[in-house]
C-alpha cells in the first residue's frame, strides 16, 4: 500500500461518466493533470451498481467488485473513483473482503478460475477526498476565483453511507464539498433538505416518487436563488440536470432564473474553470446554461 500515492491511481470511471457524461471525465482529467496526479486507465467492468446489482444478487455484486479490485491490485495502484456509487461498492466490498476471511476464501475460489486472486493490498478513494487533501495547493492555483457566484452543494448518499466503512465525512453534516467550493472563492448557500437523497435508486421502479424526491430538493434550492448546484456523482447529476425538466412536465413547476432551470455542475468542472481551463466545450453539453462567462 503506498500511502502517498506517488505512483498515482487507477482511474475508475464507471459506466455513467464515460458513456453518458464524458464532460465530467474530461474536466476530471484536466484537474488531475494540473495537480500532477498520475492516473492509469484499466479495463474495469461495472463497479457494479450498489443498489440494482446488490438487490438482484449480492454474491455477484461482491464478486464483480472483487474482480475490479484485482485488476487494480495487479498494477499495485489505489483506485480513484469519480462516482459515489462506484466509491461505495468498491470501498465496501474491499472492506468486507479484507475483514472477512470466509467471504474472501469463497470469492477467491471463483476468481481462481480466471487466474485472479484478491489480496487486499489497495485502497479505494473518491476524487473529492483527494482534492480535499490538496485544498491548500488548489487555493494557490486558482486563477479565476468564483467570487460572484453562489452555490448549493449536494453530496449524495453513497459518498457518505455506510459511514462506519466509508468514513468520508460527517454523514449528517458533511463539509468537504462546501469547503472545496469556498477554496475557489465561491459562496455556499444554506438550504433545507441538503441531506436529501436524489431518488435515483427509484427512477426505474417508481418513476413518480423519484420525481417527487427530485422536486423536494429543487424547490429548496430554487428558494436560495443559487447560481448553480454542485454535485460529486454522475447519477445525482442526471437526476437533477434532466430530472428537473421531467418534474416541470409532471407538475408544471419551473426552477432557476426566468424558469430556465437550475444549472447542475460536477465539482471538477467548477475546479477546472477556476484553474483557467477553457471549459466551453464541456459546458456546452449541459442542458442548462452555466452562469460563467
Amino acid at each position, binding site marked *: 500500500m503506498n500511502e502517498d500515492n506517488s505512483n498515482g491511481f487507477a482511474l475508475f470511471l464507471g459506466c455513467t461518466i464515460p458513456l453518458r457524461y464524458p464532460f465530467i471525465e474530461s474536466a476530471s482529467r484536466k484537474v488531475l493533470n494540473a495537480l500532477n496526479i498520475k492516473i492509469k486507465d484499466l479495463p474495469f467492468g461495472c463497479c457494479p451498481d450498489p443498489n440494482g446489482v446488490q438487490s438482484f444478487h449480492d454474491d455477484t455484486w461482491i464478486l464483480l467488485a472483487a474482480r475490479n479490485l484485482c485488476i487494480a491490485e495487479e498494477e499495485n495502484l489505489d483506485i480513484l473513483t469519480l462516482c459515489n456509487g462506484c466509491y461505495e461498492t468498491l470501498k465496501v466490498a474491499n472492506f468486507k473482503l479484507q475483514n472477512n476471511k470466509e467471504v474472501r476464501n469463497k470469492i477467491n475460489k471463483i476468481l481462481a478460475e480466471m487466474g485472479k486472486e484478491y489480496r487486499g493490498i489497495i485502497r479505494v478513494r473518491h476524487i473529492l477526498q483527494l482534492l480535499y487533501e490538496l485544498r491548500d495547493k488548489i487555493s494557490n492555483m486558482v486563477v479565476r476565483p468564483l467570487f460572484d457566484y453562489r452555490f448549493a452543494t449536494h453530496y449524495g448518499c453513497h459518498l457518505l453511507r455506510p459511514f462506519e466503512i466509508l468514513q468520508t465525512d460527517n454523514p449528517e453534516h458533511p463539509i468537504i464539498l462546501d469547503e472545496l467550493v469556498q477554496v475557489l472563492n465561491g459562496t455556499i448557500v444554506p438550504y433545507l433538505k441538503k441531506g436529501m437523497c436524489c431518488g435515483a435508486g427509484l427512477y426505474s421502479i*417508481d418513476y413518480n416518487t423519484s420525481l417527487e424526491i427530485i422536486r423536494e430538493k429543487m424547490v429548496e434550492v430554487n428558494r436560495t436563488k443559487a447560481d448553480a448546484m454542485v454535485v460529486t456523482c454522475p447519477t445525482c447529476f442526471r437526476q437533477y440536470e434532466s430530472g428537473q425538466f421531467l418534474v416541470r412536465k409532471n407538475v408544471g413547476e419551473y426552477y432557476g432564473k426566468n424558469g430556465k432551470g437550475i444549472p447542475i455542475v460536477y465539482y471538477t468542472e467548477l475546479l477546472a474553470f477556476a484553474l483557467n481551463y477553457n471549459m466551453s466545450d464541456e459546458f456546452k453539453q449541459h442542458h442548462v446554461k452555466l452562469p460563467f462567462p
Partner: protein
Amino acid sequence: MTEHPKIILDRILSPARVCYQCSTCAGGCPVFCNNPEMNPRLIIEKLILGQVEEVLTSSYIWNCGFCLICTQRCPQGVDLAHILVDLKNLSVKRGNTPVGVLDEMKTLYLTGLTQESSKTVLNRRKKLNLPEIQYPDLSEIQKIMDVSGFNDLLKLNLRKEETSEPL
C-alpha cells in the same frame, strides 16, 4: 454459493428483533415521505410478527432506493437497508424482479457495464479529446455471472416476464 432461503430468513429476522418501533427510519426515508405504501418501520414490524410471506411477495420492498438513511439513523442499530437488500434477493429467486431492474441486469450481462454506448456520446468523447474507452473482458465477467448463479436468475426472471427474449 447459494444459501437456503430459511437460513437467510433467520439471518434477516434476528437483527430486526431489537426494533422498538420508534419510526425514526420512516421519518427520514425519502420514499416513505412521498409514497407511504413503502414504510420501513412497518416492514420491520411485519417481519417481527412473522408476516414474512406478505412482505416478501409485496412489490413495495422494491421501492426502497437504498439511500441508507434509515440504517444510519436507527437508534437500535437495525440495518434496514441491507435487510431490504436480502428481501429483494429472495424476491429475485421467485422471479419477481421489477422490469427496470431486470433491464439493467440484462445490460450488465450482455456488456459488462450498465450503460449502453451511443454514437452521440462517442463523438462527444472525440471532440473532448478523451482516450478510447477501455472495455472490460466480457467473457470473464460472464463466466463469473454463470458460476455465481446470476445468469440462471436472469433467465428465470426473464421467463416470468411475458415479453422475455431468450439470451
